């Protein structure tokens, strides 16, 4: 004899039945219930409708070059892995009449490879070092902005200036010298000698006492954010590279001839307002 199923149980088990994940005896009880219950049967039909629409969804395919990027990344990682360096085969020296020529050529090649490898490693190590300093800066900014500023001033040659006088050090008038958005007060401005060029670093206080930092610099500085993934967003005519920094958000965008990097924004809305405000200021400036 078949067991009976009521609406409560049928509704709880509807997906199990629809997906064919129900033991036979329960399927029979469910089928009997559905034959007598219009509302449960209609819901089953709605599941089937949903399934039909889902089946019609487009299924995007991975872009053609994606494997190439993955393979390149894997090869880079493996070339630099400590295991690989440790197991590298020693050179076997050649002998015979061409030995001096071979050795001279080999020496040139080794020197060239060594030089480029050295430069590339220097650049990688440099980026890691910068990311590490900025990690400390990001970690400290919210709790103790003065200490955060000191991290940069200690690590890199820098000095505190007023926004007007920064122009003598960096050769341009910083964006913050023309005022700040409503709701922020300028706390300090420094010029910091960074490896890839000077930047103007300013800290602002919001009405609630929290801190926002803005860097103005030539070129993008992705190394500051280490391996944090960036998302691209568009505000008006500006492309923002947005990065999560702990509980806050940071973003970089091109502003005139230079780039602005905001650190410590609450959310995308604040970033949008700042990008808009600085954009309007630039548009008002005489050429």
């Amino acid at each position: 004899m078949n067991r009976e199923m009521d609406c409560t149980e049928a509704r709880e088990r509807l997906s199990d039945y629809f997906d064919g994940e129900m033991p036979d005896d329960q399927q029979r009880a469910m089928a009997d219930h559905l034959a007598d219950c219009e509302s449960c049967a209609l819901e089953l039909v709605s599941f089937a409708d949903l399934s039909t629409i889902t089946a019609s969804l487009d299924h995007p395919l991975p872009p053609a070059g994606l494997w190439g990027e993955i393979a390149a990344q894997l090869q880079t990682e493996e070339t630099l892995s400590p295991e690989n360096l440790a197991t590298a085969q020693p050179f076997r020296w050649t002998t015979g009449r061409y030995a001096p020529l071979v050795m001279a050529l080999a020496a040139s090649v080794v020197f060239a490879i060594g030089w480029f490898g050295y430069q590339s490693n220097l650049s990688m190590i440099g980026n890691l070092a910068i990311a590490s300093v900025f990690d400390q800066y990001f970690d400290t900014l919210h709790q103790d902005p003065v200490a955060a500023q000191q991290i940069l001033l200690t690590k890199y040659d820098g000095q505190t200036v007023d926004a007007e006088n920064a122009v003598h050090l960096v050769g341009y008038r910083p964006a913050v010298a023309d005022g700040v958005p409503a709701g922020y007060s300028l706390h300090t401005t420094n010029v910091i000698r960074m490896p890839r060029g000077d930047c103007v670093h300013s800290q602002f206080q919001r009405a609630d006492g929290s801190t926002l930092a803005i860097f103005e610099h030539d070129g993008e500085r992705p190394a500051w954010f280490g391996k944090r993934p960036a998302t691209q967003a568009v505000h008006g005519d500006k492309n923002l590279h947005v990065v999560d920094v702990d509980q806050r958000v940071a973003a970089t965008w091109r502003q005139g001839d230079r780039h602005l990097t905001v650190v410590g924004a609450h959310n995308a809305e604040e970033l949008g307002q700042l990008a808009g405000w600085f954009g309007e200021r630039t548009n008002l400036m005489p050429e």
Partner: protein
Amino acid sequence: MIAASAPMNTAETPDLPRRKPDLAASNRVQEDAFAPGIDPLAEIAAACRQGNMAARRQLYDACSQHVYRVAARVAGEQDAADVTQQVFLQAFRSLDKFDGRSRVETWLHRIAVNEALQHLRRNRRHKHSDLDWEPMDKVDSGRQAEQKDALEQALANIDPELKSIFLLREVEDYSYHDIAESLHIPEGTVGSRLNRARRDLQQQLQEMGFSRT
């Protein structure tokens, strides 16, 4: 009585609407050709562990469409390539830790869902109406396209975990067992979560005028 829009067969073997395997799932690795319990990708995975690039390429070719689909549906198409890249890099780096208790494909999908969900969580704070995000391409027209758009919109609004379960079932044709394994949830909760996902989606479609029930 049952409404006319829901043809029901109340004979001894009722012909009630049941889910049919999805076409997209036909691209999955053909497990049926192998004895039960034998993972067709296990050998390829073993070669990948030795750093064999050809084997890695084989694993990518076998699974990238599914991984990309999960990434696109959960994290959004604009971020799908980044998520897919991270998934495969992470998989190749951690193949040593793969214990072989699940199928390679399930293990890879677990990484894909986790990575896509993490990506979504990381980026959720960035999303605001003031910033425009790249839209997905729209190539269809008419009622079907509107219906698909409505479903895309509804999928974007439901809880990401529910969305993942729904997509693994409906698009990837995963069994409840595989869904539970992929998402590290008890198998007994898959059905009830699918109920919630389907009801949430259906309600949204209804509100957008795309439901007959």
